[in-house]
């Protein structure tokens, strides 16, 4: 049933590698009177190779949306359309296997694709350098700080070599400086590899700094309130005036939404 709906709405060109098209996505948790409608009719079109940031109040369904795109959960309605290929996911709480070393956690993403041992090792160390964790390859996750764990998770997500990268508040636990550096790195990798990125954040400036489009979601039930196209030249600086101006506009809209919901 979802298939026919998809076919009627999405033409084949939109199905190019990396494109993600959400059509009237509904997600309900539970049944009966206790059911929670996390998402209610979310439609969103993500161009291949674009950078989309999702903004919204806590609990509005951002993580839910990402796990639906990743195929970790079933839809209650609507459809999500993307080429059948693995998507890389960076979870909100940096999920690392605690029994593997940092390097092992990065390598496991490549093992699946049958990358040779030496190549895996080389690439893992390279990625760890990218996220500024050289020298931590043999540590275990419990020996790292929260922000370091998130960076390992980023390195692993990149190691998957997927064309779609889903990131759930990946830089939340980082200090402003490290976050700035990683914004630059992420932007570089995104451009070089032509990734499609779906990036959840609470930080409006971060969203404007990184996104081609910024999607504002409403709270309970989650719907798309507004989509802002960010037409600022790259590379952008998070503290530049144009970024701040657009961020202020979006913040106002977000604030209005949060207070509307509070009443």
């Amino acid at each position, binding site marked *: 049933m979802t298939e026919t709906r998809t076919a009627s709405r999405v033409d084949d060109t939109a199905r190019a590698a990396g494109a993600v098209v959400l059509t009237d996505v509904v997600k309900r948790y539970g049944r009966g009177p206790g059911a929670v409608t996390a998402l209610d009719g979310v439609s969103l079109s993500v161009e291949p190779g674009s950078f989309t940031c999702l903004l919204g109040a806590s609990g509005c369904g951002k993580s839910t949306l990402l*796990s639906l795109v*990743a*195929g*970790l959960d079933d839809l209650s309605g609507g459809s999500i359309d993307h080429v059948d290929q*693995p*998507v*890389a*996911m960076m*979870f909100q*709480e940096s*999920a690392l*296997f*605690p*029994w*593997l070393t940092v390097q092992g956690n990065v390598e*496991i*993403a490549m*093992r*699946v694709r049958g990358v040779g041992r030496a190549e895996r090792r080389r690439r893992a160390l390279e990625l760890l350098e990218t996220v500024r964790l050289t020298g931590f390859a043999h540590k*275990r*996750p*419990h020996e790292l*700080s*929260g*922000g370091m764990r998130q960076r390992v998770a980023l390195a692993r997500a990149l190691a*998957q070599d997927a064309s779609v990268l889903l990131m759930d508040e990946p*830089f*939340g*636990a*980082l*200090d*402003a400086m490290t*976050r*700035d550096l990683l914004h630059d790195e992420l932007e570089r990798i995104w451009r070089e590899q032509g990734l499609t990125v779906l990036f959840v954040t*609470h*930080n409006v*400036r971060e969203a404007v700094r990184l996104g081609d489009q910024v999607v504002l979601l409403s709270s309970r039930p989650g719907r798309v309130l507004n989509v802002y196209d960010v037409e600022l030249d790259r590379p952008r600086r*998070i*503290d530049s005036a144009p970024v701040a101006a657009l961020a202020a506009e979006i913040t106002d809209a977000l604030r209005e939404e949060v207070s509307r919901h509070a009443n």
Partner: protein
Amino acid sequence: MTAVKTEAKAVVPPVDDEELAAGRASRPRGKRRLGPGKPIPLAFLIGPLLLLGVWAWGSAAGWIDDRVLTAPWTVVTTAWERWESGKLGPDLLVSTQRFALGLLFGVLAGLVLALVSGLSRWGEAIVDGPVQIKRSIPNLALLPLLLLWFGIDERMKIITIALGVLIPIYIHTHNGLRSIDGRYAELAETLRLKPAAFIGRVVLPGALPGFLLGMRFAVTSAWLSLVVVEQVNATSGIGYMMLLAGTYGQTDVIIVGLVLYALLGLASDAIVRLIQRRALTWRRTLED
């Protein structure tokens, strides 16, 4: 006044730090106010040594009758004499062998059953019930039946021990498997791990804490079963030696047997604990 204000403003970094203020959970390490406190070196020896001290002191002071409980030094000399005369060695060897074989087969069986029932619903439906039934029947109660089926040879003893070992291994490994954080399964899913890699890299390491806990119960259970089978019917082994000593009223030999059981039990538990500590460095629990 105004000057101070501008200065203070200039110090504020340009980037907003909402997230930093929100404070992601990052646990500080080191001093913990709650919990049992720092580990004591060789802690596991303190209790037994204290007990030994009381025993030695009681015997020396004459409070403990030698016929009731032989003095520790008498036990040592008796053990030495029996060892010298070549009576102790073979018994010890036979007992250790039974223990090791029973443990080996029991662990293998428990592990396989736990994997079968932990990884598939059908496996659980078929395996779990019978294991739970076996769990509620004491090994001692099964003995007459096992005797009938397997006679009185070594096979019967090893099977009895293995049956006792299987239960804790199964229960704890199965529990360990099932309580692996769902996040790891989701993670494995997004990494597109194949079933074999999922079992090898996620399921087995994830279930290792449970398995090793089961292993500690298993080792104790193996010694327990050994004592039972050796005293019910045997013509060799430490249990048999004690049984014989009982009929001749040799308290010292009985104590030698008890001490041997205790030492072997302690030693094997210590080995499992050591493995536990080595293998589970990635876990942060009240233990460390």
